[in-house]
Structure formats: C-alpha cells, structure tokens
C-alpha cells in the first residue's frame, strides 16, 4: 500500500480511536455503575455535537468554551433521562429487557426531536465552524489543528476520569457500586447521589466526544446512532466493565475500521460497504467467544463473580 494511504489511515485510526474511547468510557460507566445498557447514549453524543454547533454559530469561536458547553449540555440531558425515565422504571423493577426497550425509546424520541428541530432550522450536514489550520505537513501526511486538539483533549479527559475514579471519594463510591451494588447500598453509599453524578459525567464525556466528532466530520441527527455501534463494540471489548479495556477496545475498533479495512480492500478487494459490519462482527465475536473482553477481569471496575 502506498505510504500516504497508510499514514492517512493511521492518523484517522488514532483520531477516531481517541474519540471512540471518550464516548465508550461513558457507556462503560453506565453499564458498570448503573447497570443499564443505554442505547440512548448515541443521542447524548448527537446532542453534544449540536450544542457545539450552535455555540460555534451564535456564541464563540473559542474551542474551549464550545467543548465546555457541549459537556454541560449533554450532561444535563443525561441527567434528565435518568430522572424522568430510567429511575422511575428501575424503581418499579423493570426487567433488563424492559430497560433496553426503554433506552431505545428514549433514544428515538430524542433523535426525532433533533430531526424536527434540524429540519425546521436547516441545520443538516453542518461542520462545526472552527477554523481549520494545517499544523504539520509532509509529502505523506497532513495533520491539522483539529488532530492536535481532539486527540490530546480526549486523552486528557481519560486521564482526568481515571484520576477521579481512583482518587476521589466519588470515584471510590462509583467503583463500589460497580463491584457489588447490594453491598454498597447496605454500607451506606448515597446511591441516588452517585447515580446522578455518574449520569452527569457520562453525558459530559459523550457530549465532548460528539462535539469533537462534529469538527472532524459533518453533523446530522443520525451522527450518534452511526457511531454508537462502534462505541458499543469498544465497550464490549472492555468486557463492559474495564476502564483500560475500553480504551484499548476503542483503538482496536478504529484501527479495524480504518487501517484494517484499507488493507483488506487493497489486498482482497473487499468493498468499503463492509466497513459498517466491523463493529457488529467484533461485538458478536467477543460476546460469544470471550465475554470478559480484552483484559479479562484485570482492571475491572467490577469483579465478576458469576459462573
């Protein structure tokens, strides 16, 4: 394969992987701490993207402020989802399938509200208006300021999250809930409070992910839905409970979708339409062959004691 294609794929893999990691960590937190498979996570990403878009159109060009607003916007939506839908249903002991259906429904409602608004105000397929500058160029590869913004921001947030989980009391409480929810409740951990804060964090991470995504490709109401499968795949690779596993998984997914697909196309002529199948194939393979994910139980937010 020509060097420029390789480098281009590599750059894309790293960039996309970082964003997937950001979005997937939120999903992993939801699964481990709140024990909810949240299919509406996709919409948290989309909301973040659109908050960023609107901020960039009406308020400011400062990247920092835009990302901050995206964080807050999605965090609020996530918290509302929890209070208005998930918590009442969980209080009535709805089965996990019921919660899955509920999260699907919430996602659909959000998605089509966004569709209606976007349709009304003509905001389809917009890029977030941040001036793009080329910061590094060689004959083989072009790196823009977006690359140098998205990757470090994503990594920085991952580090912050890691510190929060390990160092703060909130983080410890989250981990306790992930480990053994019943025991945690009994030992006096303020479960409701931890859940509230967890949702805020989850929403925030997804929102920033969505905002960065909207700078990288154009934004539309299906943006979240189109990335959610890759994000889920990353989380699944992390055994749905492991912090490091999720991050690793995110890069595995992005590299499979980009570099690997490039190679398969080049070597075997495999059509790019199959790129969409990559996250699905990963999910099925992991769930059927190694449900504990890449890292097994090491690094789990929760120690699985079944079977």
């Amino acid at each position, binding site marked *: 394969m020509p060097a420029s294609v390789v480098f281009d794929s590599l750059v894309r893999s790293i960039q996309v992987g970082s964003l997937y990691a950001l979005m997937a960590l939120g999903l992993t937190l939801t699964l481990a701490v709140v024990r909810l498979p949240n299919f509406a996570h996709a919409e948290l990403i989309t909301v973040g993207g659109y908050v960023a878009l609107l901020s960039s159109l009406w308020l400011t060009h400062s990247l920092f402020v835009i990302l901050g607003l995206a964080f807050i916007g999605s965090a609020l939506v996530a918290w509302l989802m929890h209070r208005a*839908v998930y918590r*009442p249903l969980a209080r009535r002991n709805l089965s996990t*399938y019921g919660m899955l259906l509920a999260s*699907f429904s919430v996602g*659909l409602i959000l998605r089509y509200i966004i569709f209606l608004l976007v349709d009304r105000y003509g905001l389809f397929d917009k890029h977030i208006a941040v001036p793009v500058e080329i910061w590094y160029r060689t004959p083989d590869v072009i790196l823009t300021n977006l690359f140098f913004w998205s990757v470090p921001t994503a990594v920085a947030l991952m580090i912050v999250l890691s510190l929060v989980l390990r160092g703060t009391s909130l983080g410890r409480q989250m981990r306790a809930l992930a480990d053994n929810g019943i025991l945690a409740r009994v030992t006096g951990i303020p479960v409701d409070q931890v859940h509230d804060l967890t949702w805020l964090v989850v929403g925030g991470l997804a929102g920033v992910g969505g905002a960065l995504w909207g700078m990288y490709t154009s934004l539309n109401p299906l943006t979240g839905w189109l990335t959610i499968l890759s994000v889920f795949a990353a989380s699944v690779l992390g055994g749905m409970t492991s912090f490091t596993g999720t991050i690793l998984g995110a890069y595995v997914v992005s590299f499979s979708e980009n570099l690997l697909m490039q190679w398969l196309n080049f070597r075997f002529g495999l059509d790019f339409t199959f790129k969409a199948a990559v996250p699905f194939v990963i999910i099925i393979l992991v769930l059927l062959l190694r*449900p504990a994910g890449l890292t097994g139980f090491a690094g789990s937010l929760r120690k699985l004691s079944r079977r």
Partner: protein
Amino acid sequence: MNIDYVATALALLTVFGISALMALSLNLEYGVAGVPNFGQAMFVSIGAYTAGVTYTRLLPWLGGRAGLDPCGDTLTKALALRTELTTLFPTVGFLNFGLTVLIALLLGGLAGYLASYAALRVWEEWYLGLILLVGSEVVRILAQGYPPLLCGSNGLSGIGQPFVWVHNATWSAALFALLALLLAGAAYLLCERLVRSPYGRLLKAIRENDRVTLGLGKPVQRRRAQVMAIGSAIAALSGVLFAVNLGFVSTNDYTVALTLDVWVMVVLGGVGNGRGALLGALIVTVLNRLTAIAAIALNAMGSQFEFNYVRYILFAAILLLMLRYRRQGLLPERARTTIAHDELRP
C-alpha cells in the same frame, strides 16, 4: 381528498395479517419463552430474500424460460419476464409462491434454531438481545454487500403477489388480503394450542428460570431451540408476504425499525397473550396508516412538516408509557395453561 375506501380497507387488512404474523412470532419467542428476539428483522428478511431469489431464479425455470441475470445488463429484461410470468400464468405463479413459502419456513426455522444457541453463551441476560440485534444488522449489511443476492442496495422489483393475474384490481387485492388473514389465523391457532399445552407450560418455566427448569430434568436448550424455530419460521412467512405485497425486495426495509415496530405490537397488545399480539398488530397497523394519511394531508396543505419523525416519537412514547404504567400490555397473559386446571375444579 379522494380516498378509495375499499382499496384502503383491503390494504389495511393485508398489512394487519402480515403484522399479526410478526407479532405472533415475537409473542411466542419472547412473551411465552422469554427469548428477547431483538433480531426479528433478520428472520422476516430471510423470508423476503427467499422470495427475491425464487422470483428471479426459480420462477423463470418453472415457466420453462431461460433465467436471466436479474442484476446487471439484463435487468430490465429479467424484470419484464417476471412480470409476464406472474401476470399471465397463474399456475406457475402459485407454484412458485408455494415453494417460496415452504423454503422460507425451512430456512427461517433453521435460522431460529441456530440463533437460540447464542443463549448458551451469554454472561448477562440482555447480551442475548444485543447479539440478536447486532446479528440482524450484520446479516442485512452482508446481504446488501453481496450483489448476486439482491442486486446490492438497488433491490429487486417485480415480485408479484400470487393473485396479481386477476384482472380486477380490487378482487386481486381482496384475494391476497384473504390469504394473509387465513395464514395469520392459522398461526394464531397454532400458537394458542402450543401455549395451552405442557410444552407451553415448559416454555413459561424456562422463561422464568431456566437453571431451575434444567434442574427439574427438562432439556431446556432443545425446547428453546424448537420454539425459536417455530417462531422464526412464522416470521419468515410474514417476510414472504411482506415482500410480495410490496412487490419489491430491498435490504432497507428490514432494519432495526422493523424490529422495533414488532416490539411495540407485543408490548402494547399484551406480552404472552396471543390475542394481545393480534390487538397490538391491529393498533400499530392503524396508527401507521393514520400517520401516513396525516403526512400526505399535511404536505398537500403545503406544510413542510415531516410527519414521519412524529411517527417515531409517537411509537417510542407509547412504548415508554406502556413500560411505565402497564408493562403487561393491554391484554395481560393468562396464568393457567392446560386443561388440567379444569380437572381439579370442585
């Protein structure tokens, strides 16, 4: 606004019959046996794709004509051939339809049987739902990416329903509607008889606690695989009817949206209740038609409002309301199963 009431009614009845089959299938698999089939679209699509293949390759052969490549250069000729055979030669059309149904039932049943084995490998309960959902999308993408099957994303047209040769359009539609309703009725009877038997009792036990059921000496996986086979065969049958009703087979019709529609039917109508499944299918069919009419009416009045978006929001909201306020559905499940209960009546 000019509405052809008869045509609309017939169309509604047909779609109701097809939807009823889908709802009965999911009701049997999830409502009774507890298998969360979030991949319903896949099993329905098996029936549809079978129709796609038989109408393009089997039909010409049955009609004694040379088969043409349905995609590529001979596309229009192949389409003309199909249309000619289905509209002019009823016996050939019926034969093809009958064979399509048989093959679809077999393939659908086999797929369901195999898919049930995913239940053995799951760590948490909902992983099964996720696997089936994801598997359904993989199949769709693969079918789309394998051109010889359905001509890629273009789809195949000219898949006529078995009564398309009837000159009177109303009679043609009426006969097909009748067929759809009869098949739905047969499926309903089958499901009811299954549920009111020891097999139904065993499925409910598996639904509630498969570990304990195994400990009571029952071959849990075999029975689960069997119910998936039956349910998926019914779903595949609905797929055949769906495709020939539309006259068109394309992978775009069998997405997660279809799976969701069927779940709404079952959750709304009543989980574990056959009549509930029928009721849910009826309500969803009517709602779909009403929103479609409303969308057309609004557009005719010059509004740019996309009513389709509202349809999704409406369905999702219904689902949430049911989950919140009446999760057993409109018609709750009957607890007692077999006639044994009548034996003990004082």
